[in-house]
Every structure is written in structure tokens, then in C-alpha cells.
């Protein structure tokens, strides 16, 4: 007899498939990878271009999420305003929206004949759709909600007494925000950035719809994987493995921090 409280019998039997459906495909990719040619595969022209492009666009999208998401998350956590729940719902909408639908929506907003895009073209001669900027926007659209959600939870967890103390000792609202609040949420901020970046890096649906799939311009790694697979090229597997390693790296770096960040703001 094991000396511990018993759990309902048979749970493992039902729980194991949930693990297997993730573990088996990961193993399969490792198993099928052509290891001797792995480095050649990810360093040929198409792959390298896609990698550089992916890195650049995803980092820019993450920085944009940081710049625009931080104030929004703070306001959501600290201020009561009209239509707050509507604003929040719109902020997280991309998380539940199929990314391809997001791409369609972006196209009708910023495309050449879109709601805003038509004016941009007419007045400034700016065309966004099917450019690298579009790839960045698509990634921002899909990934920023993760940043906003984690940071709202983080700001919400900051002790109001501590922030109030900073104010009474002479720090204005901005100084308090920069020296105290940001310092307190730093672990969550790092988790939010990594999570947002990982999501941006993996973006596919919105990118292919709004930015297209032009090698060297908008073909990020996930799009390159798709193209390779379609055309029977050999690099799909190697690039997939690389993405998988990056994702695992992210999880190891975070060590479950983002889960706790979502739960209690990482405090």
C-alpha cells in the first residue's frame, strides 16, 4: 500500500493520450530529420533569408507590443474608464480569432482598397499590404494580446500601498511608474516579451493573407516551411526542427514563469 491519499483510479489511462499527441509529433520530427544535412538545410539561401526575415519582423513586432501594449495594460489594470470591458475584449480578440481571419480583416483595413489603406495610398502613396511592414503588423496583431494580458495581470498585482508610498515620498506619477512599478513587474515583463516574441515568430495565417508569401520580402520561416512542403523541397523538416528547438528554448528559459505570470502577475 502506498502511504498517500488515493486519486480517482484510471486517470493516467485517460490523461496519457493528451501528452502523447504532443510528444509523438515532436519525436517524429527529430526522428525524420536528416541530421548530416541539417546545417546545410537551414543555411541555404531560402532558409537563411526566411530566418533573417523572421527574426527581424518578430523582434520589431515585439518591440511595438512593448511600446504600445505597456501603457494599455497599465490603464486596464489601474483605471476605471468607459467601455473598459469592450476595450479589453477587443485587445484579446486576436487570441481567439483564426489568424487567417485576422489577415483578412487587416487586408480590408490596411489593404490598397481598405478602409484606412485607401486613404494612405491616396494621400501619402503608402501601400502596406504585401510588404514587410504588413508582415510586422500581422505578427503584432496576433501576438500583442499575449503581451497585454500578461502585463495587465502583472500591473494588477502590484501593491497599491507600495506605489502610494513612492508618491508620498516625492516621486511623481511617471517617476513612480519607471522606478517602482516597472521594477516590480520586471519578471513578468521579461516573460511577456519572450512569449510575445515566440508567438510573433510562429505567425502564419495572418501573415500569408495580409503580407503574402514572397521570398526575401514576406516569407518568414513558417511560410517557408509551408512552401517547401507544398513543393516537395527538403528543407521543411529542418526548418520545423529549428522552430521546435526555439520553442523548447523559450519554454526552458521561462520555466513556467508565464503561467504564473498570467495567474498572479509573476510577483
Amino acid at each position, binding site marked *: 500500500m502506498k502511504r498517500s491519499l488515493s486519486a480517482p483510479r484510471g486517470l493516467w489511462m485517460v490523461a496519457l493520450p493528451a501528452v502523447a499527441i504532443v510528444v509523438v509529433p515532436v519525436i517524429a520530427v527529430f526522428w525524420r530529420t536528416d541530421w548530416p544535412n541539417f546545417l546545410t538545410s537551414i543555411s541555404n539561401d531560402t532558409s537563411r533569408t526566411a530566418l533573417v526575415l523572421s527574426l527581424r519582423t518578430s523582434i520589431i513586432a515585439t518591440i511595438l507590443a512593448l511600446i504600445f501594449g505597456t501603457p494599455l495594460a497599465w490603464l486596464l489594470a489601474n483605471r476605471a474608464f468607459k467601455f473598459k470591458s469592450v476595450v479589453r475584449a477587443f485587445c484579446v480578440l486576436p487570441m481567439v480569432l483564426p489568424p487567417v481571419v485576422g489577415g483578412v480583416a487587416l487586408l480590408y483595413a490596411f489593404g490598397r482598397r481598405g478602409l484606412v489603406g485607401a486613404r494612405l495610398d491616396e494621400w501619402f502613396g503608402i501601400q502596406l499590404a504585401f510588404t514587410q511592414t504588413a508582415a510586422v503588423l500581422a505578427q503584432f496583431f496576433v501576438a500583442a494580446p499575449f503581451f497585454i494580458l500578461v502585463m495587465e495581470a502583472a500591473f494588477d498585482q502590484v501593491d497599491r*500601498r507600495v506605489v*502610494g508610498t513612492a508618491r508620498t515620498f516625492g516621486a511623481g506619477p511617471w517617476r513612480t511608474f519607471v522606478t517602482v512599478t516597472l521594477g516590480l513587474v520586471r519578471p513578468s515583463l521579461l516573460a511577456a516579451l519572450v512569449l510575445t516574441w515566440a508567438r510573433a515568430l510562429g505567425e502564419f495565417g495572418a501573415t500569408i493573407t495580409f503580407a503574402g508569401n514572397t521570398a526575401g520580402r514576406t516569407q518568414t520561416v513558417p511560410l517557408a516551411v509551408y512552401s517547401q512542403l507544398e513543393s516537395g523541397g527538403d528543407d521543411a523538416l529542418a526548418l520545423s526542427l529549428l522552430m521546435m528547438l526555439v520553442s523548447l528554448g523559450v519554454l526552458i528559459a521561462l520555466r513556467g514563469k508565464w503561467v504564473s505570470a498570467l495567474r498572479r502577475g509573476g510577483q
Partner: protein
Amino acid sequence: MSLEINCELQRDKFNLEVHLTALPGSVLAITGENGSGKTSTLDMIAGLLACTDGKISLNGKVFDDSKTNQFVQPELRGISTVFQGGGLFSNMTVEKNVVFGRGAVFKNTPRFDTAIEQFDLAGLLSRKPSTLSGGQRQRVALARAFLAPSEILLLDEPTTSLDAVSRDEVRRAMKTFFETYNGVVILVSHDSTEVSELATNVAKISVSRGESTTATLHV
């Protein structure tokens, strides 16, 4: 020359009325049951809450006046605070905590050395608050309040949740502090020993519960 408060805070089903005059050099202890509005009273003085109706002024300077729509931000009121749990910045060292804000100008001055010595922080300066005991945290909070020039000192249950030994230690530190302090001290406390030992006046918030709660503080 005094702190004058005549104001009301209206909340959903809760009404707090404060009429209070406190003179520099005095230590006013505020007692009252949980949820009677002791902390809210301190928050209104500090400027972390605006009163719904009424006026707060110090030496004739208006802090908050609902009639003239004046409200002075907390950073401009010149108030030192020791909130429950110490209100320390956990991302900063003890030293950075002590010299935060108005106290910063006293870094590397005899006044800083006095603060460190008086609150016995010499060995703790490079530590982070999370590594300190409850009593040590409160001493850091007191040193910070000591170093920053202020006309009002607000303390919110500074010894609650401390063990008996730390409580004595923090109480002694407060006693020395108050003896040389020239401003108005307002101390919210549950501890009758602390109140009798430190306070020059005591006021209790009276509460009447009906359909909504009304709390009154009259000093």
C-alpha cells in the same frame, strides 16, 4: 499652525466622516475596528484618496478642497508614510529604499548616518527587502520616513503582524523617532501598549451600522 481636516468620504454603503485638528509635536493615535476607515483617513491625508466632500489643510495650505476643486498630488504634500508591511520597494536594496525620493539629497550626509544608526540598519544596506524579517522591514520604512523631510508622519499599524520581540524593537525605534520629530504624527494602531506608550492623544473611530455604515472620527 496645524493639520485641519473636515471632510467626508462617501462610498457605496459606507460613509466616513473625519473632523480632526492635530498640532505639530503631537502624536495622535487613531483606533477603531477593522473596516472603520482608519487607513482611508490616512489615505485622504496623504493624497492617495480624494475626499468626497470637505477640506484638508496643513498650516493654511489647502491639500484638498471639494468646494474650490483643489487637490494637491501626494508627491507635493511633504508627507512621510509607513504603511502596513513597510511599503518597501522590493526591487531596490535597503539603502536605495531609505534614500528614495525627498531623502535622496541626504545621501552621504550626517543625517543619513544618523538614520542608519538610529534604526540599526548598518549591516542591512545592500540587502533586498525580501530577505529581511518583519521587524527589519519596519525599521527600514521608519528610516526612510525619518530621512525624508516632512511636516506630517503617517503610520498605519506599524507593528501589526510582528512577533513580540520585533514589536518591542520597532516600538522603541518609533519612540526615539517621535521624540525629535517636529511635525504632526498620526499613528493608526490596534496595540494598546503602543498607543499608551507613544501617543499624546487618542481618538477612536465610532461606527454605526444600519442599512449603510457610518463611521465618525472626531478629535
